[in-house]
């Protein structure tokens, strides 16, 4: 095909330019900034004070930041476990020839299109309420006293509550991806397995799961990216001050850079930048690990 240089430049330029301005320049500058003490986000570079790795050291010593990283890991791991297993379960049920499939599918996916602020408020102010909450009401009517007495928004439960609410919304999306992948697997595979006398569980573990490897890889990367960006749910669950159960690195950085709600504090934009660098490294590492562990082997079908 004939190459047209001018066309290539015209077609590529806007995308490249937007990438340079919105991604490359800021990332480099943030990485750089993480080595400085910067009081105001708008300070010129000349006002930055070089501190080496002190910002990172400070983060390591900050109990709140350490807590936020723990929460992130827990959200990623336990949330991932819940979301992936539920999504997989639903997608297997929905692809097994069930009636009203598209209705069920649509409702389960619904929370994804609704603003997280609205969903979070519903959970926080209704489901988990210790006065008129849905869970309290349901358990009460079943006479399950211990469950009724759980205070879902107390410090030791709030993380679990947050996780449940978050996962509830995320399951639909991953379910759709799994469903599409399962539907792509030719039925002949299963027919052959049936002839060989395999039961449902064997068919699932021997055929479905291995063939979903690629999808798993994509999903894990997507899940990592969305976990790292965990912010708005924390805001809805702890709107005033960060609390140990809900704080995430994004929330921590927001406080670091824009100041605390109630008290007068030192702000350090450099530390906020360091949080960004750490999170980016995590995503990159996750990306590398999953690609390595779940190496893509091509199935032809």
């Amino acid at each position, binding site marked *: 095909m004939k190459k047209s240089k001018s066309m290539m430049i015209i077609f590529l330029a806007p995308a490249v330019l937007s990438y340079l301005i919105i991604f490359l320049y800021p990332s480099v500058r943030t990485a750089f900034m993480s080595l400085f003490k910067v009081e*105001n*986000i*708008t300070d010129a570079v000349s006002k930055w004070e070089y501190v080496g790795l002190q910002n990172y050291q400070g983060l390591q010593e*900050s*109990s*709140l*930041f350490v*807590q936020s990283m723990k929460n992130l890991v827990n959200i990623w791991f336990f949330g991932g476990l819940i979301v992936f297993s539920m999504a997989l379960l639903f997608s297997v049920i929905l692809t097994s020839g069930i009636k009203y499939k598209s209705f069920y599918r649509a409702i389960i996916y619904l929370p994804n299109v609704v603003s997280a602020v609205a969903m979070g408020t519903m959970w*926080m102010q209704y489901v988990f*309420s*210790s*006065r008129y909450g849905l869970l309290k009401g349901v358990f009460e009517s079943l006479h399950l006293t211990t469950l009724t007495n759980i*205070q*879902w*928004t*107390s*410090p*030791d*439960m709030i993380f679990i509550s947050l996780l449940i609410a978050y996962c509830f919304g995320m399951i639909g999306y991953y379910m759709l991806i799994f469903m599409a992948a399962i539907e792509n697997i030719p039925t002949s595979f299963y027919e052959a397995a049936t002839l060989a006398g395999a039961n449902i569980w064997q068919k699932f573990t021997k055929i479905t799961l291995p063939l979903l490897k690629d999808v798993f890889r994509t999903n894990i990367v997507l899940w990592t990216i969305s976990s790292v960006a965990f912010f708005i749910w924390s805001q809805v669950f*702890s709107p*005033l*001050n*960060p*609390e*140990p*159960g809900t*704080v995430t690195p994004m929330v921590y950085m*927001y*406080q670091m850079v*824009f*100041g*605390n*709600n*109630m*008290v*007068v*504090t030192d702000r350090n934009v450099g530390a906020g930048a360091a949080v960004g660098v750490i999170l980016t490294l995590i995503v990159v590492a996750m990306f590398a690990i999953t690609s390595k562990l779940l190496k893509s082997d091509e199935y032809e079908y």
Partner: protein
Amino acid sequence: MKGLKRLLIFLMVTMLALSGCASQNSDAGGSDDGAKVELVYWSMWNSTEPQAVALEAGIKEFMEKNPDVKVTINWNGREIRKTLQPALDNGQKIDIWDEDLERVTKNWKAYALNLEDYLKKTYDTTDGKRYEDAVMGSLIELARYFSEEDAAYAVPYQPFVFAFMYNKEHFEAANITETPKTWDEFLVACEKLKTAGYVPLTTDDAYIDTLLGYHLARYKGYEWVETLVQDKTNALWDDEAVLKTAENFEYLATQGYLSDTVGSNKWPAGQQDIAAGTVSMYLNGTWLVNEIMGSTGPDFKWGTFSYPTVEGGVDGQNAANYGSQAFQINKNCENPDVAFELLVYLTTGKWDTEIAKQSFGVPVSGTAEWPSQLNEAKSVFENLNQVYPWAAGIQADTDKLPIIAEAFTKLLSGQFTAKEFIEAMK
């Protein structure tokens, strides 16, 4: 397919046009209606709050009286704590803003105008007095105190005291004739309330740490509390005062003086219990009256008493966190005279009374009457002569605060003993 493309192009063109128009409109602003002076006010209130409604009406009247002044209000809500400074750094046109007196002075003094000259002048609504003599002198003094250079950088309004707010009907029914002065009296009152069938005390996640801060400060003073939380070695948590404080609260929990839901209260759930009449006391600012007015109605019988003293403690009931909301004027404001006139208009005479009345708050000018709900708060206020910082210093380390709050919540809800609480702090 052509249809889609056309649609896309159409959408894009209209949207771009819309966005163009919109931004032009907001830029051009008042220049059409001949206004000469434009002021932009960033408010700490949400547009639905009574303070906002009253302020808006006051500002509107000011504009009617001064047709060449146009004031644009941006209702930020409390998010202003995070949005204002970046916007100021940004050079956005913001002439006036408001927030808590301590916070505006300590955080944003560098952006604000020194108001000393303006305070010494007289204005139409100050009855011939200098402005600083027409309003509560103690607050002007407080503004100077916070600035650390004996100059006021803020105009106070809406004074508050942070103290125990209680339901007087409960106290009467429980036959408590005098408000508690000491911790022992406080415990007696709790017992009486409990016997009378009320839950004595509750709080919410937003304020839970204030109980701890006040109690520790009664023992050792607020400066000690600040050192306590800022000390990275955590050695001070072994102090006897901490243990006594923790045991005092453990006692409250074991005696059933605290609401069952105190561990899970998300603000303002606990406040709604006060409104519903199931709980009697709540440590809060006098603004509580206004914040739950929607549920209590104006006939709720409010009482106020200062945090009780503790045995062997250094601070008396004359020390508390008190202060006010406060306006600041941007030091780069093009028309500071007009801006200050507006603030005078809002904080004296008719509108001072009106704002206090509509928001069941305290008027800032000495002459205006306090709302009946705050009668007792007035005497508490008049007896104060030592000011605590917010939460008596317990929040001085933002990093430590969430951990303190969590452990203290567990102490109050009975999940921690006093010893476990102290362990958790180290």
